[in-house]
């Protein structure tokens, strides 16, 4: 099901200090998603916001929040699936985003999925647990520091010889992909879901 009324979880508002606006969106989330048994999102930081931070804004969100899962969590931990039958013949490195690592705590679920993708060669990313420098409005407010962090992340990615860097947060990928492109590398930033959706005939 895709409830058409859904919009945004309000992470940007919350992380920037606009609690009231975030609380309004949290209440809206509860209205839109309240009746579902399991809610899945491809963005670990949004999951973290809903599951870990909403309850401090609106207590009634705790009940719904507990049923929200990041995609790899849902597949591996909840459904027990680690092979989705994907085919992706490329050298891939995986960047564990900070929120997936320390807030949502998806553990090794994304890696287990990637290891089962046919044709895919998974290479380890040096200093993987180091932040890429995105940080929401940080990327703009502290652009210089953000870009310094990004430069180091891109260098790590390029050092692996991978042609694709994957992660479970679209926003970090937008930032990393933008950096890789600006530096003139051929490495692409792809969401885990995009890799899992690749098949032999497509």
């Amino acid at each position: 099901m895709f409830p058409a009324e859904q919009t945004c979880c309000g992470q940007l508002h919350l992380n920037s200090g606009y609690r009231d606006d975030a609380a309004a969106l949290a209440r809206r989330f509860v209205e839109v998603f309240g009746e579902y048994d399991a809610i899945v999102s491809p963005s670990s930081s949004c999951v973290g916001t809903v599951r870990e931070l909403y309850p401090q804004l609106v207590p009634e969100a705790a009940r719904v929040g507990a049923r929200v899962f990041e995609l790899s969590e849902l597949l591996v931990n909840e459904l027990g699936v680690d092979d989705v039958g994907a085919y992706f013949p490329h050298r891939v490195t995986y960047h564990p985003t900070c929120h997936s690592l320390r807030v949502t705590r998806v553990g090794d679920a994304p890696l287990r999925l990637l290891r089962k993708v046919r044709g895919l060669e998974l290479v380890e990313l040096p200093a993987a647990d180091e932040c890429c420098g995105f940080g929401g409005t940080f990327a703009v407010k502290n652009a210089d520091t953000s870009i310094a962090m990004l430069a180091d992340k891109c260098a790590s990615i390029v050092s692996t010889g991978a042609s694709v860097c994957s992660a479970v947060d679209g926003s970090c990928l937008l930032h990393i992909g933008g950096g890789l492109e600006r530096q003139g590398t051929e490495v692409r930033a792809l969401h885990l879901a995009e890799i899992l959706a690749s098949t032999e005939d497509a």
Partner: protein
Amino acid sequence: MTDFPAAARVELANGQLRANLHHATQTIRAKRAGVVAELPDWEELREAGRGIKADVLARLDEYLVQFESAAQAAGAQVHWARDAAEANAIVVEVARDHGVSEVVKMKSLTTDEIHLNDALAAAGISALETDFAELILQLDGDWSSHILVPAIHRNRTEIRDLFARTIADGPLTDDPSELAEAARVYLREKFLGARMGVSGANFGVAETGTICIVESEGNGRMCTTLPPVLVSILGIEKLVPSFADLEVFLQLLPRSSTGERMNPYTSLWTGVTPGDGPQEMHIVLLDAGRTRVLADEVGRVALHCIRCSACLNVCPVYTRTGGHAYGSVYPGPIGAILTPQLIGVDQAPSLPYASTLCGACYEVCPVKIDIPAVLLHLRSKVVEHKGATPERLAMRAMGWVFGSARRLRFAQRLGRVAQRPLVRGGSIRRLPGPLAGWTQGRTMRPVARESFRRWWSRRP
């Protein structure tokens, strides 16, 4: 107060600084990780540390009075200072009473916080820093950029040149042991002649009135035992209830800070002991904004901090900008939550935003301070304080758009049209206005031609 983004820009341009910092923090990080992994009960220790500190803050009024009477009973004179000026005046007065014109100091963040050296200098009293790194900074007119390793931004060659210019009486190589020896020779004379010592404190034991300091070099022990008069300045949050509580912190602190199982020197003293050590002992209990922090139920956890500096060493922002960008003696993640609370968020509104909220600090903090949560809390205070700003307006507008799926669909359509002049070859290389920071080092993906929402609705 300096604006973090602007100050960071200056520091980031210093390649030597970044190389020094990267090397030093990576080394300490690895050492810390090694000794922390050794302890099977590390998480329990952290929880115990957190619990003890929470209890101290909840009953601080009782513990302070208990500490005062225990210290007095042991022969110490206890002073209360509401702010930096009061604390400094007390130290100046003690020095004047004894006709002292030079004091020896051990490394102390608290005395840096209140700018004690400047206050002493204004009263014609010179304060000599005796910690190796602090000495370096003092000789060069520089200031600390790290809680534990104040001269982390300097390397050996820079230090050799400095010593050759100042304290050394012969030629010098950049061999660390030779540099240390040069400082030792210089300081020994000073220690032997010193008539007054000044220290901070790592812990104060409420039950016994004992002060505890931990250090690596032994200069602190010299400062606290050789001169006949000693003044120790203690932030009121530094108390622990009982002697037994030190057991927890003396495990947490060295492993988190220097990555050692135990630090080389741990000194504990209680008041005055006739015939041994200083015969006149003063303790200054310093508030300087701490009660204001305590009044904030969310923010007060910042007072749990035992100044181990682990959060600095893992912070992706600190390890690139260094400490000076934070414009305070407390840099890095702890500085980002402590400084704005001590001096008021309106005085340091950019600090709560000097973080990506990556959470690495929380993960290593030995007393489990949820730094990202406090950052969020302080950000909302900054927003409250600033009132109506263009950002406020933009956030409101976005909130309004997200308040209805129809409005969101419309905004996406609008975005697709508005971006047309910006898209070149499938990506955006330059964004206008406040978003220009993004394209400073990244291209931008344009809004997709078809939204997920539409794709979903037209599936067969």
